[in-house]
């Protein structure tokens, strides 16, 4: 059954090369919705743990401010974790898998970030 979250996420698959997106709770790792290939979007709990670990290490190294994104690149794929702004409540993560041959990382990430806030609309 399609939920409101799933319906919002489907729109993000329009970006060239984006093969799967998921909306994940950045604290608990709970996956609220998936569009496209769920495996390529990544496991929610693992993505949340990874983002938390990176944020903690950055903070310990003296970085100020909140974590915005994590971008991982392999020879064939990109994996992007984007923090989603929320009026109140625990932060969310938008996780996206991209095909490196078809996606322009900079454009796709920019597009996802621009539309991340619309996901909760």
């Amino acid at each position, binding site marked *: 059954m399609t*939920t*409101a979250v799933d319906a919002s996420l489907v729109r993000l698959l329009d970006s060239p090369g984006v093969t799967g997106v998921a909306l994940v709770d950045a*604290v*608990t790792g*709970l996956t*609220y919705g998936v569009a496209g290939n769920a495996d390529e979007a990544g496991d929610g709990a693992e993505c949340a743990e990874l983002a938390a670990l990176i*944020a903690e290490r950055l903070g310990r190294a003296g970085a100020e401010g909140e974590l915005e994104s994590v971008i991982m690149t392999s020879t064939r794929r990109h994996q992007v974790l984007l923090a989603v702004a929320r009026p*109140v409540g*625990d932060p969310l993560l938008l996780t996206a898998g991209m095909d490196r041959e078809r996606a322009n990382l900079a454009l796709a990430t920019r597009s996802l970030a621009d539309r991340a806030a619309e996901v909760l*609309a």
Partner: protein
Amino acid sequence: MTTAEARNLPALLQGLHEDGHSGTVRVSGSPGGTIHLRGGLIVAVETPGAPTATSVLLTPGRVDDETWLAACAAEPDTDRLGGYLVSAGLIGAAELEVVCTAAVFDAAFAVAIGPPGGWTLDGPEPTLHAGSGVEPRRLTEETTRRIVRLSGAWGAPGELARIRPAAVPDAGLRRGLSDRHRAVLSTVNGRRTARDMAFTLGRGLYAIMLDLTRLEAQGLIRWETGGPSEGRPSTAPRVLPARGAPDAPATNTPQAEPPAKAAPLPRRTRGGASWPGDDRTGASRPRDGQSQAVGAREGEPREALVPDGQAREGPSGQTPAEGSDALPAGTTGGHGG
């Protein structure tokens, strides 16, 4: 139908899911809770152990109280309140779905880390919900994952839930902390449990406990040593032995075996004073809060709390003795510390 012989709560919910059941499952125990099903899917779980979706919306001010009351007046049917909130533009459909789904998983976790209890089935009751609901199998798997994730040096999550952490000096001055962690630190005072903080901040219990373990790993808070001090009434959910389960192993019996058993026979004192031991329990009860609403006095049979006429369909205590079944749980990792 398998509800009568369902071995445990996950099996019951799975059976109800296969039947497409709509109704309410009341789980006894501490904290216990109420599970709302629509068409076999779990749409809401309410428990004194964790904030509801309503609390999560109201406490941090996502929806202010006056607007909320006006919405409740405009749409008296709580089942349809979610749809009204969205149509009135008070919250996005996806955001409300996120809040409600998070609350379902969080409340299930809160119920699962308490000692297992029995259950009764009722008809549908109105409750705030959004989205299609959660399949029982997914809820059970996620709850199991959470229990495993929060099992550590302190023992099972049930033990962690009773800890009252204290901040180390100057913890708030540490650079590089996220706003969320600062907010948690601001509520840590050596007296609050994770549940207290969850209600204070309007966040999930599991999220708070996870943040606490991360703050502790960073050396910003320390666990209260020694647990509740002698003579101070506990406001934490108590781990009571599964009542009505004569075959249950005695290992779950908390160290505080009902004092009444060990105490001498009641003896009147001059001036008509109360029974020995009453002072302590009497003093502790009003401060125990809602988490003890179903707790009754230690040693008192919990069956007495089931209202007359409500058949206990679920055999109390017939819960997973081992394995990965999470609901009702506390079984993964055991209750021991």
